[in-house]
């Protein structure tokens, strides 16, 4: 192995390392140490906390473990666990175990793995005689605090290694782990913390995440020099793209093809199946199928594996010569991580190709590739003060201690970076938890309850272990897909319409754990759809793409002729069509049949925020529902046909950026997304059990009970930080105000029509008032009415209100003196034609004339008013006399009907 490398180094650290470790290193064939190993080993030997940032496959695990083994050999065993190795995945645990077993055997150290799959016998053995090195997951670490015997074994821990820490730091799992490390600190005192991370933009934040306020050193091995990234345009149609991909697979060596969705993975796998050397690997496949594919790839029986993020982490699958990213990788970090899988040996260059699949996709890929080469990588943002994580940890701590002073809890969690300032949050969370009896508060003490242990058993993990509800189509009698249970609980009810798999469905029944639906025919306007979560394109990338569009600097980014030709022609076509090209300095609003497309280069999260704000404003102004779909470069607002781009511009012009955060909180509350998140948070809070019954209970109302609680606040916090970026959206509006971004309106362009790559539609519903008025309006429109001419008194006609012309006229005599009667008043027409009339009949005639006079002066409006319940000529002229129009007119009718309904006459 060493012979392949021209500049291998001699060992620089022999005298500091134990003789046994040195001989192991030699036995293993490590005559050369990688850069990370050279830099990290002395620091770890010096007992420093470190974060080691280096690409996958550069021997990070050994960098951490060689000095740890050295230290374990030089100090006597205390009988408990001495080092903890934490990874985010069980499959990684198994991988690390098989690599470390060799070292431990050679060095006579004991090693064990413990996670969800570990059999009970092994667990018991570990409780009695714990291994010196324990490999585990963050969730299983939680479980270690619950057992009395296991807790004792924690006291001797001197080293904690967190592998793939970048995966954890930005998630709630990570926040939970950060607290767990501080809980461990209570037993073990100051232990050495070692974080192993892929390349990130902000390594210091990772360090703080790992160590809290303790000192740490960052060891950073730059990736750029080892990366070779090409971008290739693969054609516009899927068929072309498959052909391009297929032609690239023919070469010598093995290839990993990364795709962004499982659907794409399946589609490509299907097309390439006949080659016989391709397998598909993604999270929906069973474990056996996945492991089989991994093994066959490792043994060289197949040379291509099509995979999703399932293959991103450092699971060993042998030699990978080339990585292909099918479609834009969306983020720089993701690209680097994926391409890093190629050349999985020391000092080999990682080669990767992005196959771009369209105009936006191509420009985005070029920008991401440039940023990867320039080492401009996204930051990882930890969840600060996540209330549900805190609730989970308070429950854990209360079970661990039985009862504990609140001040102590504050000390423990306060040592972690993610809860370093959480005094008031702790109070709120404790009070909320007492509400659902997860803890009891007794003065300054927190006391555990019977529910807490049960809760913990179901909630060790902060991963939403989402039950999937099958969607059963009653018409075709088959299951058409699944929905997240939280979505079903929060939003779906009988009669609700939603979109999934690109189709509209109406809910017939929610029972027996499944959702029975029928296809819905209404295609106008749109509704909550559920397509799962997507990888968002960051603002910085979308912005740079806008800059490329403005300066047309495609040649600065690539020299590949096909890509240059395609992109330049695309922009030329825009010019030919006299469409203005939306850029980082130009927002274009384009009219389409479905509504208005807003082309804004702002990335998913800012567009999500902007789209919701603008839709709530339009919805309030025009009293209509607004559907939204979006991607990183455009927002489609689904609108009724009379609302046009100019109206959207007016709304945008009138928008005060300072009001946007307030507006979005209002807008969010009624959306499916919010309710989905609320249910998830409430479950993690223990307010809703994992297996709660949602079929027989009117959940919609129950969710209102969370109004103003810390649970609701957490749902907002997470949505506003993870799903949308209101600050950036407001900053863009501010730039529009200052004139630095121009806004134009126009017809649909080819950029606007390019298609929405992702969509998550919501319905920000109008006020209830509008729904009521719409219902009443429909009823009145379909009411029957009898028109009868009070001039010639020789014509009458029975029809429905909607068919009555604006100014009804008698076809016989041409007069407009037409009385509008309710169907049961039809006999009265005969009275009008009579020659001789009784007093009573004369009174009737007078009423009819009065009726006809109102129709004469107000036309159809009068007919509508007269069709209402209990509205006669007097009421009708009063309603019309208010001069109310539109909704106000119907509101007047409602008022009159209400009066009538509350009187005796109606109820007999």
């Amino acid at each position, binding site marked *: 192995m060493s012979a392949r490398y021209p500049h291998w180094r001699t060992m620089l650290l022999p005298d500091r390392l134990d003789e046994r470790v040195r001989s192991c290193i030699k036995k293993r064939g490590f005559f050369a140490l990688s850069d990370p190993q050279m830099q990290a080993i002395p620091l770890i030997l010096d007992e420093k906390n470190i974060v080691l940032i280096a690409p996958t496959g550069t021997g990070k695990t050994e960098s951490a473990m060689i000095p740890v083994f050295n230290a374990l050999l030089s100090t006597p065993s205390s009988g408990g666990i001495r080092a903890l190795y934490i990874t985010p995945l069980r499959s990684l645990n198994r991988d690390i175990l098989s690599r470390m077993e060799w070292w431990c055997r050679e060095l006579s150290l004991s090693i064990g793995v413990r996670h969800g799959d570990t059999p009970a016998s092994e667990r018991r053995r570990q409780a009695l005689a714990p291994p010196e090195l324990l490999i585990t997951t963050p969730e299983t670490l939680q479980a270690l605090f619950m057992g009395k015997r296991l807790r004792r074994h924690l006291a001797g821990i001197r080293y904690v290694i967190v592998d793939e820490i970048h995966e954890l730091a930005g998630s709630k799992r990570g926040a939970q782990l950060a607290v767990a490390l501080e809980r461990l600190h209570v037993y073990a005192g100051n232990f050495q913390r070692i974080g192993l991370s892929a390349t990130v933009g902000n390594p210091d934040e990772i360090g703080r995440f790992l160590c809290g306020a303790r000192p740490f050193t960052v060891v950073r091995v730059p990736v750029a020099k080892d990366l070779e990234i090409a971008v290739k345009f693969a054609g516009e149609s899927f068929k072309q793209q498959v052909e391009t991909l297929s032609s690239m697979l023919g070469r010598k060596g093995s290839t990993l093809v990364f795709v962004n969705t499982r659907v794409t993975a399946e589609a490509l796998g299907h097309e390439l199946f006949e080659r016989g050397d391709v397998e598909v690997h993604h999270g929906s496949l069973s474990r056996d199928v996945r492991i089989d594919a991994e093994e066959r790839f490792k043994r060289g029986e197949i040379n291509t594996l099509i995979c999703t993020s399932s293959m991103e982490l450092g699971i060993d699958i042998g030699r990978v010569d080339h990585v292909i990213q099918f479609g834009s990788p969306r983020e720089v970090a993701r690209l680097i991580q994926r391409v890093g899988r190629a050349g999985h040996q020391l000092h080999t260059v990682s080669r990767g190709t992005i196959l771009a699949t369209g105009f936006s996709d191509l420009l985005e890929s070029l920008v991401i590739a440039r940023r990867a080469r320039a080492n401009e990588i996204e930051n990882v943002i930890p969840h600060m003060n996540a209330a549900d994580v805190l609730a989970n940890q308070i429950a854990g701590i209360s079970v661990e201690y039985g009862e504990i002073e609140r001040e102590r809890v504050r000390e423990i969690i306060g040592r972690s970076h993610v809860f370093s300032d959480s005094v008031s949050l702790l109070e709120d969370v404790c009070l909320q938890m007492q*509400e*659902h*009896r997860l803890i009891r508060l007794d003065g300054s003490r927190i006391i555990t309850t019977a529910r807490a242990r049960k809760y913990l058993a179901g909630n060790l993990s902060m991963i939403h272990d989402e039950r999937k509800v099958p969607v059963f189509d009653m018409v075709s009698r088959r299951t058409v897909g699944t929905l997240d249970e939280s979505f079903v609980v929060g939003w779906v*009810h*009988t*009669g*609700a*319409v939603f979109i999934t798999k690109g189709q509209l469905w*109406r809910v017939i029944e929610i029972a027996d754990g499944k959702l029975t639906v029928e296809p819905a*025919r*209404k295609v*106008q*306007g*749109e*509704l909550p759809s559920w397509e799962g979560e997507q990888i968002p394109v960051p603002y910085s990338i979308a912005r740079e793409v806008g800059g490329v569009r403005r300066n047309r600097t495609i040649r600065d980014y690539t020299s590949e002729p096909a890509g240059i030709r395609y992109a330049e022609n695309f922009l030329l076509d825009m010019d030919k069509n006299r469409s203005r090209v939306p850029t980082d300095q130009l927002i274009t609003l384009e009219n389409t049949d479905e509504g208005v497309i807003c082309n804004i280069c702002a990335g998913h999260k800012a567009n999500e925020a902007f789209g919701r704000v603008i839709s709530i404003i339009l919805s309030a102004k025009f009293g*209509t*529902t607004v*559907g939204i779909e979006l991607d990183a470069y455009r927002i489609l607002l689904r609108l*009724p046909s009379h609302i046009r781009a100019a109206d959207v511009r007016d709304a945008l012009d009138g928008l005060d950026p300072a009001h946007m955060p307030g507006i979005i909180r209002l807008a969010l509350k009624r959306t499916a997304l919010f309710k989905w998140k609320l249910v998830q948070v409430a479950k993690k809070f*223990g*307010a*809703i*059990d*994992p*297996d*709660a*019954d949602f079929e*027989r*209970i*009117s959940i*919609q*109302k*129950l969710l*209102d*009970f969370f109004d103003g609680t810390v649970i609701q606040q957490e749902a907002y916090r997470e949505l506003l930080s993870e799903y949308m970026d209101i600050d950036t959206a407001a900053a863009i509006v501010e730039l529009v105000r200052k004139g630095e971004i121009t806004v134009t309106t126009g017809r649909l362009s080819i950029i606007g029509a390019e298609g929405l790559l992702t969509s998550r539609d919501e*319905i920000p*519903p*109008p006020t*209830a008032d*509008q*729904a*009521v008025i*719409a*219902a*009443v309006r*429909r*009823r009145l429109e*379909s009411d029957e009415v009898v028109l009868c001419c009070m001039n010639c008194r020789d014509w009458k006609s029975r029809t429905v209100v909607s068919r009555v012309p604006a100014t009804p006229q008698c076809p016989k005599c041409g007069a407009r003196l037409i009385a509008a009667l309710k169907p049961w008043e039809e006999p009265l027409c005969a009275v009008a034609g009579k020659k001789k009339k009784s007093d009573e009949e004369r009174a009737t005639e007078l009423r009819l004339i009065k009726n006809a006079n109102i129709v004469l002066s107000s036309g159809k409006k009068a007919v509508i008013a007269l069709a209402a*319940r209990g509205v006669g000529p007097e009421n009708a002229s009063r309603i019309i006399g208010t001069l109310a129009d539109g909704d106000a007119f119907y509101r007047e009718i*409602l008022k009159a*009907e*209400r009066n009538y*309904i*509350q*009187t*005796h006459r109606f*109820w*007999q």
Partner: protein
Amino acid sequence: MNLQFISDGPALIVENRTRVLVVADLHFGIESDLADHGWHFSSRSAERVKKVCACIETTNPDLLLLLGDVKHSIPKTTRQEFFEIPGILSAFRDLVPIMVIPGNHDIAIGRFLHDGELLPKAGAIIDGVAYLHGHTIPSPGLLGHLIIAGHHHPMVSLHDEVGCSLRAPAYLAAELDPAKLRRAEKKGTRRKTRVLFMPAFNEVAGFDILRIIRHPFSPLSRSIRIDTAEVFLTEGTYVGPVSALEDDVAA
């Protein structure tokens, strides 16, 4: 007779000679049942009592009629109910005389009531209007009157062009078909019997009106003439006939 719709309930004021405030389906103690189904909330009884008291104070009735399902748990009375209900009822009594028509959830409610407060399960006529909880076959004596019933917790979903935008408690009014009730009409009463299903006062409960119509679950709901069924919102807004709602769904 006059009806007044109190939307801050929902509740009804029914007035001939006396002013009766009618409140249906309070379901005090529902929280322990919700907890059994995995939903954990602290008791909201205090808020609910406050809301009823506010109704009493704004409408100043002569009588508060609780139209069944005052409590929630069956068949046992839970600890929560045992502790809460006496206080709740006396809070009402402090303001106005009360009467209770027992519902299917009101097993052994008598132990919390004073003499004369408990009306028969089969319904009663007060001041010319018939009252019934709604889970039983109405006694023949009620026919020919307007019957006000609880038990069904009606709710309505209204749609605009695009989708459902309001789900709210609602009243369902309809004529009864005596033939379906399998009770000979009382001789001499030619008058139609109308029934008005009240929405639940409890904020959690609710069945969609279309579900009540399509899958009736009581003798009363099985016996209505669907072509006469009409829907009102809690403030008295006339939404329209049920058939219009069905059009909505089919559209």
